[in-house]
């Protein structure tokens, strides 16, 4: 109970004191136990810091179309990972993405690998768990 209160206290403090929240904790925003692979048509690519995003229309078996959003590396890292802005992936391209779903169940994911229209596979974002503290805290738990 004390631990829960402490954690709640931290959250309350942060909510009150921090106007700008973060982009780095995978584990807060995304669920590593909810991997998803989707194929669709790219509608928009946001080549922005601190994270890029691309949007994709996905059509289900009944013909319903849903627009999904996938977060990725910043532009400089995408460049070093082999991406070329406005060349590798453009609106209208049919691509497949492996991602992990957002914890709130919305059509939002942390993109990991994209299979481009020409079959090339490129990483769009880092592995699950990046930025959320990893497996072990910095201090030894007594």
């Amino acid at each position: 109970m004390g631990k829960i209160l402490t954690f709640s206290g931290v959250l309350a403090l942060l909510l009150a004191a921090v106007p700008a929240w973060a982009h780095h904790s995978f584990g807060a925003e995304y669920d590593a136990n909810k991997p998803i692979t989707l194929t669709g048509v790219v509608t928009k690519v946001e080549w922005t810091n601190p994270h890029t995003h691309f949007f994709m229309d996905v059509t289900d078996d009944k013909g319903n179309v849903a627009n999904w959003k996938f977060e990725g590396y910043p532009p400089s890292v995408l460049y070093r990972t082999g991406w070329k802005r406005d060349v590798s992936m453009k609106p209208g391209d049919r691509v497949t993405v492996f991602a992990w779903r957002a914890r709130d169940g919305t059509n939002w994911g942390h993109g990991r690998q994209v299979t481009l229209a020409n079959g090339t596979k490129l990483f769009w974002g880092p592995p699950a768990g990046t930025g959320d503290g990893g497996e072990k805290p910095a201090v030894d738990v007594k």
Partner: protein
Amino acid sequence: MTARWLTLCSAIMAATTLHAQARPQSSAPRAADGKPDLTGVWQPGSTTPGSWEDANSGNGLGGTGKNPNAPVALSSTDRHGQEGAPYQDWAAKKVLESFNSRDIDDPTARCLPAGIPRLYSFGLFPVQIAQTPRQIIILYEYMNVFRVIPLNAKHAEDAEPTYLGDSVGRWEGDTLVVDVNNFNDKTWLVGGGTFHSDKLHITERYTRVSKDQINYEAVMEDPQVLTKPWVYRTTMMLREGTRVHEYVCPENNLDVERYEELLKGGIKFGRQ
């Protein structure tokens, strides 16, 4: 006889010393003033030589995925080192609270600078070093921050506390030693939740041991939160052909709303 022997020994010792001073201690390139030349674009947190693309072919942080067997790179919130950070008990609890809340209080998540030595704890972003006989300039792609390190100078008397502190450097043999003080208390040291006070003092050592590699060491002292000096070591590898890019973090930091929505919606993301 004894005097002549001593004179001979002295002469041999002097010649040996001169020879040792004149001969480079390693294969590291030298600047015009004879000091090791740290100039270049470097990838911290790596031990693999070669180009950026070749050295980052694994599945880890920032890799291309072409070689699944390549070593995994750590992220900036991962624990670095076997030994736990030597925090005082009350402070260790605070570090643990950050871990349990998945480091949502990470200053870099608000586009604030990663601290020293955290800037050298992950290999996703390169670092560029420029060197003159009088100062060392270090440019960090992550958050686009920089450090100007005057050599053989005193700390600025009017320095305000800052994220990266006030640095002065000196050469000790082939090692660049940088003394850093005047920090604010708004960065993390290395790993998630590793806060510090404004009494932090860091001694850094940069040794270019070969053309490809700088050995880096930081001794962190903060009597307000640590029980003893905390030593962090890593290596930086030369990445010829790599450029330090622009990184304007606040451009499109949309996750402010995301976190608030998750919290309002009662989404549980903390560790149990």
